[in-house]
């Protein structure tokens, strides 16, 4: 149920409206494999960003970054990268 304290009826919004955004729920804990970008190979096409199902890849104008708070390690980015700049390595192993 996440790590929040459970609220009582009086503390809840009406009409069962959710009161938190899922950005507080870090799905990064799901990973068995983590994507690692080789910036030497990356051509900044942003294909990985386009396909990422978890909005876990961003572009700051200079480089592509992975947000490991949310990345579930699906490997789509690694497979779709046209220059094979991303490798999937075991979570917890050396990166």
């Amino acid at each position, binding site marked *: *149920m996440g790590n929040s304290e*459970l*609220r*009582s*009826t009086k503390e*809840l*919004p*009406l*009409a*069962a*409206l*959710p*009161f*938190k*955004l899922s950005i507080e729920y870090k799905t990064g804990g799901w990973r068995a494999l983590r994507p690692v970008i080789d910036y030497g190979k990356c051509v900044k096409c942003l294909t990985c960003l386009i396909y990422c199902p978890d909005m876990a890849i961003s572009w700051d104008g200079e480089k592509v970054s992975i947000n490991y708070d949310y990345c579930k390690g699906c490997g789509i980015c690694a497979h779709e990268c046209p220059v094979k700049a991303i490798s999937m390595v075991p979570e917890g192993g050396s990166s």
Partner: protein
Amino acid sequence: MKNPRIPPEKQIKMTLNGDEAVAYAVKQSLVDVVAAYPITPQTIIVERFSEFVANGEVHTEFIPVESEHSALSAVVGAAAAGARAFTATASQGLALMWEILYIASALRLPIVLAIANRALSAPINIHCDHSDAMGARDAGWIQLFVENVQEAYDTTIQAFKIAEHPDVLLPVMVNLDGFFLSHTMEDILILPDEAVHEFLGGYRKVYRTYVDYLGKEVEIKLDPENPLTFGPLDLYDYYFEHKIPQIEAMAKAKDVVRKVNEEWYELCGRKYGDGVLDTYEVDDADVVVTVLGSSAGTVRYVAKKLRKKGHKVGVIRIRLFRPFPHDEVAELLKDVKAVGVMDRAISFGSYGPSYLEIATALYHLDRKRKKRPLLVNYVYGLGGRDLDPGLVENIFMELLKIAKEGEVKEPLRFVGVRM
């Protein structure tokens, strides 16, 4: 009483049937969206309203949906978007809406639904009984039952005010007996448009609630300025907490119904008991009959006759069935010797719906009391079976006998059926 703001002379006399009266009330109530599917005996509501739309007499968007399930779904969507929304149905149509009824209540949408009460199939029957509305009594909707066409008009307008009240925010069913009211013409008094607009406070106002991720109180509606999520998934950690506010709102609804009844009285000089219960000669009664809907007229007519003959009989018409006024009914009946609870529906395997409520109410009478009323359930009128005064008189006379003898041999009886 002091003069109503709009005395009868300033009201407009119209000759309408129950369905037409409901349609007219909706016409005046600044309703934004009507989505409805025709079903006898509600069809005239939909037809008449379509005419108002075609003539440009209302600003309402009318959606001729392809089923009742979609009718209520569309109205839920409309209400969630902040609109005042209405639909109408009966019998199988209400049954088809069933899952959405619960959702509308949980989303706290002030939808008004007019039901021209009709028996549920099978066999298919287009005539009046209360099985349709009673089948939906657990869904979290306020349920009002009207006695005549004037009340159908009055109550439809009141329903919007009750539903939209900030203490309530629950959908309301306005029940009128199929054919007996829906298709029966009466001379009724209609208020001027502006009076209805003022009574309702103009267009629908949406209330607010605090949502943490927005950091403020926001209107409970689909609004691109304040994105909200309606209809989430609950696990076992929150569903129960989410049901409590509906329960609490139901409890508050009784007072709101009374208040609106009183406000209507001040506006046009008409009231229906205290809005919740409409009583006739109950104070000193030995025997009381309780009833819902148009049959109350017949029951009261017979009671008057019996009073003239010296029998101490009374009648309670239950106008507000959900939330059920247990305490009030118990208080009214506590010194009565015998009570006949008339139900135009049966819960198979149990009793009639209002009998179950009244028995519960009386059970909780002070334990120290030596006596509590004898209770008999009279199920009548299923599938539109007529209730003639002779049958009602039999009920009263039987109850008077039971009161004297001091016991009830069969608590569940059927009236007017060839066993």
